[in-house]
């Protein structure tokens, strides 16, 4: 690569970018304004909400035979609330005789880490508020008053016998669906409800005990909050009553202090905050990078294609990779600029006190951590901008790029969300998954955990991903179908078989969607046999026939119905046991370097059928039928549809992965992908579906027999499995030696410029 030319191109790109007012506004100015605006909006909202709450007087009504005793309880609660500390939803604190006993430990870290105070910012914000004020109003028809919003909630005080009969009525009503939302809401736990079993109707209630039911509407803030506070207050009062009663009868100590429970958080506040912040940071950064860089990326290749200037650039004496490198640098610059500017922006706003961070985010990050985080952010920005560049290079127009942007956006966000997964450590397979690894790494760094070898692994995997993406982009510029929109497309007019290669993935996507969605929506399919029959015959068999019919395909060609040499059968018979054993060996070996979940190894040999099925039925359901119909679909139609689009190695991998994805369970994907790859290799080498059917059915039968007779291959010593490797290699060699390749394959390597092997010699 010529650095001077890349520099020249880079300056050229930046100049054009900066002259494009639309891009500057959309990708630079807008994001710079949006984030502070959002934060500022949040601040205003929360202030407004707090003001609202401070001045709110919750209106309530009391009804029922024992209304007066409820009023008395409320009054005692109000007194307590006025004396004691602010209502925190922690009854133990509220009834504690002020300042006595062990309460000197306020300010202890254990208290600070109390979940009631720190986990939910909204609740925490209530701490410094003055006691809530309540106003009782008359309500003849409390239900309708509640619905109309005249009151925020109401209390119904039932006598013991009333409550008893209500319980009976409820038992009867349970069989019917009750339409009364308010009543239903009263029984779902709300704030303060969790300890309030005696205040609401509970199944474990003693007969004859009076009951107070609090009716509120969960769809209204004031109703939810006010009723919760009221319940807390009443619980406090009752607690105090009970303590006083016990003390009055000679109980020697404060009844609350009989058992004192406390949680002690030994994490430093920085670690706790870092954990919270570290989960959000990657999402924020990726989001900022995407929003900032996407406009620049779209313009840089797709925009140039549309304006026609890309072709001009391609006729100059720069290399494709130099063009791609310069464009990548441009997008990267924008991404880095935006992110740094946003970070700076945020610090300025924070420094000026315009925006306050919630207490949970009040963290101190060491300069080392900042450096490491920035060092990790750069590969993320490189990967994201390379990905954006790739879709821009792949799309023919600006509009097409926008179409691809959404799935890329979602995909990246899903990867980034890996940091939110509990218990995923960087020391796992995740270290080699681009973006997801950084997301997990950031979380670990924010709690002060630096796993240097795995951090380096993550960086290497990110840079590798970026390199591959860039190379891919530069290849896109070589594809003249994408560079110039000149080619006639007769396939669209002709339809039928000509269109099949382009539609085949869509067909399989549809089939996959049905397999995923149908079982959860159709009752008959929740049973194993039903699901099996539906997948095998409804999806794979019928789907294959439908593709043949709709696209008017030659069924012999589409299903690869071809004779093979006799030696192939020997090879396949050798492959039947050795494919499975080799798979277990390879995964076992690789888990020395990267731990695989154990479930994955077990899935190699396990089957999903219950043991009480007779053997012949298992063989029919799990071996013979999938061996035939799944092969029709995957090594038949899928391979037929893709074989002129992908080079053999990629073809084998893609068919294998799609085969794996159809076996939905997470830990089955890798083993079935591996099996799919092996079977597709057989199909490519023999050009026929029959050996594939034998291998598939044989492999399944072998796996099941091992399972049924309790042979746990995955626990065998690796040396034993190693012995099987020569068999596997020999079988593949036999297939290669007596190969009758799948007709019409693309050449293995790029040398012949996309002309298939059988066309090469023709002028």
């Amino acid at each position: 690569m010529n650095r001077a030319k890349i520099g020249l191109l880079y300056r050229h790109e930046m100049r054009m970018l900066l002259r494009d007012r639309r891009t500057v506004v959309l990708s630079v100015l807008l994001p710079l304004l949006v984030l502070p605006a959002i934060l500022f909006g949040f601040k205003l909202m929360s202030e407004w909400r707090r003001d609202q709450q401070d001045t709110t007087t919750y209106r309530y009504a009391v009804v029922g035979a024992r209304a007066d005793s409820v009023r008395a309880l409320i009054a005692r609660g109000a007194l307590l609330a006025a004396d004691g500390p602010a209502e925190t939803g922690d009854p133990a604190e509220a009834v504690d005789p002020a300042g006595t006993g062990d309460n000197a430990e306020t300010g202890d870290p254990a208290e600070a880490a109390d979940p009631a105070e720190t986990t939910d910012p909204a609740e925490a914000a209530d701490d410094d508020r003055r006691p809530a004020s309540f106003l009782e109003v008359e309500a003849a028809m409390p239900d309708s008053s509640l619905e109309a919003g005249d009151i925020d909630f109401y209390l119904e005080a039932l006598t013991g016998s009333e409550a008893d009969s209500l319980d009976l009525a409820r038992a009867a009503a349970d069989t019917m669906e009750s339409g009364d939302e308010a009543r239903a809401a009263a029984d779902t736990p709300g704030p303060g409800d969790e300890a309030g079993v005696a205040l609401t109707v509970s199944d474990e209630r003693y007969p004859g005990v009076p009951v107070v039911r609090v009716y509120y509407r969960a769809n209204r803030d004031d109703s939810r909050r006010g009723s919760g506070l009221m319940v807390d207050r009443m619980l406090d009062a009752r607690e105090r009553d009970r303590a006083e009663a016990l003390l009055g009868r000679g109980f020697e100590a404060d009844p609350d202090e009989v058992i004192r429970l406390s949680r002690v958080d030994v994490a430093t506040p920085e670690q706790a905050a870092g954990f919270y912040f570290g989960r959000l940071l990657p999402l924020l950064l990726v989001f900022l990078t995407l929003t900032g860089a996407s406009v620049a990326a779209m313009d840089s290749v797709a925009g140039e294609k549309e304006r026609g200037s890309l072709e001009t650039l391609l006729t100059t004496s720069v290399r494709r990779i130099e063009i791609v490198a310069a464009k990548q640098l441009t997008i990267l610059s924008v991404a880095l600029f935006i992110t740094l500017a946003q970070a700076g922006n945020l610090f300025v706003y924070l420094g000026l006190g315009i925006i306050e961070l919630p207490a949970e985010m009040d963290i101190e990050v060491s300069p080392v951590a900042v450096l490491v985080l920035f060092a990790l952010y750069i590969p993320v920005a490189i990967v994201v901008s390379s990905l954006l560049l790739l879709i821009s290079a792949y799309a023919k127009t600006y509009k097409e790029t926008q179409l691809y942007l959404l799935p890329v956006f979602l995909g990246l966000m899903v990867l980034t969300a890996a940091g939110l997964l509990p218990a995923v450590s960087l020391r796992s397979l995740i270290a080699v998954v681009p973006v997801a690894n950084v997301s997990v790494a950031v979380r670990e760094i924010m709690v002060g955990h630096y796993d240097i070898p795995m951090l380096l692994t993550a960086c290497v995997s990110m840079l590798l991903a970026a390199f591959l993406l860039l190379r891919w982009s530069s290849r896109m510029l070589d594809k003249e179908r994408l560079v110039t929109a000149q080619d006639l497309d007769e396939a669209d007019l002709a339809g039928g078989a000509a269109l099949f290669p382009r539609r085949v993935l869509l067909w399989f996507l549809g089939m996959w969607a049905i397999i995923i969605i149908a079982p959860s929506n159709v009752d008959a399919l929740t049973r194993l046999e039903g699901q099996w029959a539906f997948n095998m015959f409804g999806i794979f068999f019928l789907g294959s026939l439908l593709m043949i019919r709709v696209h008017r395909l030659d069924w012999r060609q589409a299903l690869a119905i071809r004779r093979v040499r006799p030696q192939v059968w020997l090879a396949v018979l050798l492959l039947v046991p050795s494919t499975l054993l080799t798979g277990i060996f390879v995964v076992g070996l690789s888990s020395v370097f990267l731990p695989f979940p154990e479930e994955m190894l077990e899935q190699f040999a396990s089957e999903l059928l219950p043991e009480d099925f007779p053997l012949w039925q298992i063989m029919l359901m799990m071996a013979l039928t999938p061996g035939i119909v799944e092969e029709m679909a995957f090594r038949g139609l899928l391979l037929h549809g893709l074989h002129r689009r992908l080079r053999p190695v990629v073809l084998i991998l893609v068919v294998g992965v799609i085969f794996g994805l159809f076996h939905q369970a997470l830990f089955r994907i890798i083993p079935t992908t591996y099996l799919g790859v092996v079977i597709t290799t057989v199909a490519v080498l023999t050009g026929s579906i029959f050996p594939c059917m034998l291998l598939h059915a044989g492999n399944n039968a072998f796996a099941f027999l091992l399972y049924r007779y309790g042979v746990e291959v995955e626990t065998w010593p690796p040396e034993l499995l190693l012995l099987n490797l020569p068999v596997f290699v020999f079988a593949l060699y036999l297939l290669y030696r007596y190969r009758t390749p799948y007709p019409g394959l693309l050449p293995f390597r790029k040398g012949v410029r996309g002309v298939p092997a059988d066309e090469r010699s023709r002028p």
Partner: protein
Amino acid sequence: MNDPVFVKDLTKTYYDESRGPVHAVRQIGFTCSPGEIFGLLGANGAGKTTTLRMLTTILKPSAGTAKIMGYDVAEEPVEVRRHVGFYSATTALYPRLTARETIEFFARINGYDAARTPARVDELVERFGIEEYARARIDKLSSGMKQKVAIARTLAHDPPILVFDEPTVGLDVINALEMQAILSELKAQGKTILFSTHIMSEAEKLCDRIAIIHEGRILASGTLDALRERTGAHYLEDIFVSFIQEAA
């Protein structure tokens, strides 16, 4: 072999995933000498543009060889592009650059000496009479002005070989005549010019030698007189038709 343009058995087979192989250019061969205008004459879809795109390395040949100033188009595409200026209706300019910046950028990116670039830009600006709007952005210019800037950017790095793909398509008579005048002038400067057209009169008027291309094959090539002699027809139109009929 020392010809600036040397083409032998050049073939382009597209492989369309659904249509199968499409033979756009089939084993064509020709050479051009310095100071010569060589015309590819053919109907739309005959393979003219594909041939010129292979010569300028936008497309890669499926088979055969093509050399520009001795550099193989498949082996040394960067060197090839350094020695060629390519003009076509599909190669647009950057709307956000000015005319001057455009010429300067294309001179520099094609490896023109940095110290000599300003003088070269001045020279082209003067030659094409674009001083008045040299500092205006391209997107503010009329199509006639844009065309002049486009030619100037093709010549920016002073390449010995110029490839014009249907240069007069879409131009009005005045601009088309201006284009023809420029081609003659460049020829006089000793440049090798390869150009394609489907307009008979243009080929008749400008070309030293003409190749008639049809369905990817060169049916005949030579000077106008030689072609007249072979067919017995006088007008290029008749000559063209007679070759096509012969091939059918």
